[in-house]
């Protein structure tokens, strides 16, 4: 939870030395609470206070960056429930799902990577590709990398397979899908080893919050939530609750961006689901 000026004041040296440029420590604390100055302006603040203040300043929804050689997708870091309260910062990333077993994989990815729509001077493109490990994943990753440099997401549950494929993507920020209660230990280890972000999946918010804490204990900080839900109503309720808990109650275990597979409902409904998950 964001700290008040008074709470911050208690962590400052309270010497009124003026070196930060403000007449008193309290004035400086008020500016800090309003996020108008940086804590580094105070030369005397203790390391313990620094750590505590940094934690309180952490965004309620974690910023996740997926990157490759050249482009990156940033999601999360949001601070409000509604657009009119302030603004939304990061656009949702749009990924195309492809199958490792597809003999036309390279052709499809190459066509999709070339796709763009110009709209009032901006080029809209796909943000990346999600490769399903239903065949030789490492070979598929190589094939995709042969035709596109966009960020990747790997879909699989065999840690060894994911490990060897992530090794091909050294230096990139890849997303791994998905850790659940049965495989999170091995997947968290793999994600940590390769500095990948990890999707965490469970069928209730309670189970999800439990799992993100377990994954975090394994050393993975960058997570994305798969909220599950069997229909639009359930997804909407979970997504709203997760976001509200993260923003209003600073509930860290659900303070992550979300992912949704709009393609699983057929062509007609794909856009409907995508529209709902983007809007909520």
């Amino acid at each position, binding site marked *: 939870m964001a700290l008040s000026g008074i709470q911050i004041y208690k962590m400052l040296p309270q010497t009124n030395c003026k070196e930060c440029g403000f007449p008193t420590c309290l004035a400086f604390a008020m500016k800090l609470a309003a996020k108008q100055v940086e804590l580094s302006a105070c030369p005397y603040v203790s390391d313990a206070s620094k750590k505590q203040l940094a934690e309180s300043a952490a965004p309620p929804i974690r910023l996740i960056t997926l990157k490759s050689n050249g482009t990156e997708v940033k999601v999360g870091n949001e601070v409000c429930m*509604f*657009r*009119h309260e302030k603004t939304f910062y990061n656009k949702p990333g749009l990924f195309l799902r492809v199958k490792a077993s597809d003999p036309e994989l390279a052709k499809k990815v190459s066509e999709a990577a070339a*796709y*763009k*729509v*110009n*709209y009032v001077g901006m080029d809209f493109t796909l943000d990346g590709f999600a490769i399903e490990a239903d065949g030789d994943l490492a070979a598929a990753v190589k094939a995709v990398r042969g035709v596109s440099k966009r960020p990747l997401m790997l879909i699989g549950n065999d840690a060894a397979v994911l490990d060897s494929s992530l090794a091909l993507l050294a230096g990139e920020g890849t997303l791994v899908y998905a850790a659940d209660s049965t495989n999170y230990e091995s997947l968290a280890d793999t994600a940590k080893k390769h500095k990948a972000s990890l999707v965490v999946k469970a069928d209730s918010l309670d189970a999800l919050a439990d799992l993100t804490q377990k994954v975090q204990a394994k050393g993975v900080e960058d997570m994305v939530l798969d909220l599950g839900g069997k*229909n*639009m*109503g*359930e997804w*909407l*309720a979970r997504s709203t609750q997760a976001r509200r808990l993260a923003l209003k109650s600073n509930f860290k275990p659900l303070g992550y961006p979300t992912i949704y597979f709009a393609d699983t409902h057929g062509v*007609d*409904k794909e*856009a*409907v689901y995508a*529209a*709902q998950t983007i*809007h*909520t």
Partner: protein
Amino acid sequence: MLVPIAEATKGEQLVLGICEDKNYRTIVATAMANGHLVQARTPMDVNLSKQLNILISDMGMPKDRIIMDPTTGALGYGIEYGYSVMERLRLAALQGDAMTQLPMIVTPGFEAWKTKESKVGEGVPEAWGDWNARAINWETLTAIALIESGADILVLRHPESVRRVKEAIEELMVAA
């Protein structure tokens, strides 16, 4: 024209519109006299919505016969403004502001089919893809966004959009 229609359909409950701040008096008067409802349209602004609702109810129209039309834009044509106004109206209503506690009607069909993306099938970039699919998606996506921001009645044009939006509404209304 609305007056004879209102009289001829006395006994039914139609929604008469569009009431705007310039013309609302006549429409509201005939709706009151013949037991109909009115659609109160204002241009994407919370306070203007409230103001028109107040003016109409001051004429003696019961509030359960007024439907707000906060106006919307189509996807890519200002939908975010309409969306925010609707969210704010709904939040104000939930916080107890009586003059915003009315259902909302929006016209995504009309708005979406005004756009070049829906209307034009030739001479547009190839990347826009199949015209028919695009036009229906445009209308459907506009409608879904408005449902998520609190719309109660959606006026659509294409039967396929109606089908898709109906399915979405059913999914949203499943008890948790």
